[in-house]
């Protein structure tokens, strides 16, 4: 059996609305293995981002459990391995506007406890891998959307996480740049042996994952 790096059991989440409790996630279970890519599609407001936040430990589920494989630590709650066991890629890149491309990537390593020198070396190597070696000292405001997302991908990978959670990583990009970013994301993640959970509107990008799911009415079903 392949190594399971992300495991969710019976996840449930509801929001309190004026009209009453609004269930967003209903009894969701999923396992993701190393080297595997999983896509989750759904309409706007279907709860894709909420599911990703539960899987990544950015929010607590009302019910159910999530475990992430941490190097040397077995399965642990995702909150305990943020930044090291899990890497995030967001739709709006979410780079620190005051830091250069190199500093943004190195920041993730510094937060994980890596010293400044090694963190910068690792960041430089990854930025070279995503094709930004000549943009190291550029602030995000001086980078294009595609370049920003490349920096964000490098940042997500710098601590060698076992899982990458990508929330609409091409949502803000034009079609051609979106394809480039998807190629890069799938290629780099596969090359590093990490698992990818991709949330997207795009059927085309979703089809490129090894396993595909649809989230509708709070229920996760195979596509």
């Amino acid at each position, binding site marked *: 059996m392949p190594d399971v790096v992300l495991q969710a059991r019976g996840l449930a989440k509801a929001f309190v609305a004026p009209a009453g409790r609004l269930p967003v996630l209903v009894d969701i279970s999923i396992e993701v293995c190393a080297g595997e890519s999983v896509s989750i599609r759904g309409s706007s407001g279907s709860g894709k981002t909420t599911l990703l936040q539960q899987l990544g430990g950015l*929010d607590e589920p009302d019910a159910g459990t999530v475990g992430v494989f941490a190097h040397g630590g077995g399965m642990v709650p995702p909150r305990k391995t943020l930044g*090291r066991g899990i890497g995030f890629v967001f739709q709006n890149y979410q780079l620190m506007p005051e*830091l250069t491309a190199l*500093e943004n990537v190195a*920041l*993730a390593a510094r*937060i994980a406890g890596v010293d400044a020198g090694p963190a910068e070396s690792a960041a430089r190597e990854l930025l070279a891998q995503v094709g930004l070696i000549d943009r190291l000292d550029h*602030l995000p405001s001086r980078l294009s959307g595609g370049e920003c997302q490349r920096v964000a991908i490098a940042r997500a990978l710098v*601590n060698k996480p076992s899982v990458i959670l990508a929330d609409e990583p091409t949502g803000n990009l034009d079609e051609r740049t979106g394809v480039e970013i998807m190629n890069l994301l799938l290629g780099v993640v596969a090359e590093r042996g990490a698992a990818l959970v991709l949330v997207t509107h795009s059927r085309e990008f979703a089809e490129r994952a090894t396993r595909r799911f649809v989230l509708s009415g709070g229920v996760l079903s195979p596509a």
Partner: protein
Amino acid sequence: MPWFLHLALRQLFPPGKRFPAFATVSILGVGLGVASLLVVQTVMNGFGEEHRLRIRESFGDCVIVGAAPIANPDELVAKLRLDKEVDGATAYAEGPGLLRRGDFSGVAGVRGIDPADKRQPARQYVTAGKFDDLDDGRVILGYGLARNLRAQVGDRIELWSPAMAERAEKGKAPLPAELEVCAIVRTGFTEVDDRAALIPLRRFREIWSLGPRAHGVILRLKNPAQAAATAGRLGVGHPDLRFVPWQDIKKNFLEAIRFEKTMLFFLMFIITLVASFSIGSTLFSAVIRRSREIGVLVSLGSGRWQLVGLFGVQGLLIGALGTALGFVLTWVMLFFRENILGSINAVFGDGDMVANVYQFSKVPLHYDVSDFVIAAAFTLLTTTIAGLVPALWAAGRKPSEAMRDA
């Protein structure tokens, strides 16, 4: 350098911006608050110190007076000089006199002193003539008094004493004492400069018909800080005399200055507090604006206390830089204090308030290290708290909420 400190510096001073609005306004606000606090404290210290100095120069560390003039001052002075705590003792006499030079006249506080006393404070304030030229035919005038009389060194003036009026009542023709101005002193204390006239004690006794008596004895002590205890000890056995330590001379006035300093400290304290609140408010806005970034930092593995550090350090840095700027502004404002005061007087037409109210020709200063330490500690504390409150709020938020609300 910890990552959050590096990020805090970048957020306060983003690259490519020479004067980032938030940091510049905040640091300037704190700097002005600190400067206003320290300027007021230093000037008030100056008033207090200058008054204490003038009191000690005029009355020594302890002055001995009685209900009547001291009958045998030379005997008392000789006895006091033998005491191990006494550094010097000299008899004096004083009284009001009318000075006249041609068509100009003025009322003077005339003091009879020992011209041979090398420690006479007036020696250091001579601006024209020579102190040592003082003899029975000469007088030393305060700067303001000399100006009122249009008198200069070498001019002759007439001195009338109340004793001359008594002589006139007895049918004797009162003749004024004719004295030559041998020196002019300027202490900067207008009460002295506008009224003081110094003549030898022997001459004073003649003009005032005082005989061998004196109005008091001035003591200089080896340890002025212990003046009260020494005065109490020396006063034993002299029930007809009062030994007054310098701290008790014009005590109410010195207390008033101290009280004024305390009140002004509280006013300035409030100004600095308001500046700190405005920093807290601005940092709170910044924290809300950066909610999404806070969520991202959590997703990268940042801990609660590192987030607290990120925003708390910004408050601390603003406080530290604002305090440093405040110190510089304090020095600049105090260096140009006369020009600043002149401009204020010119705009509001108040005249020379320093001379009129506080009796000084210049704004006095006295730097007290403890004032600077207190101002720095207080400012760093309030600005750090101002940064910590929004930092704690930010660190306590769920990252998913932070990212959604941004």
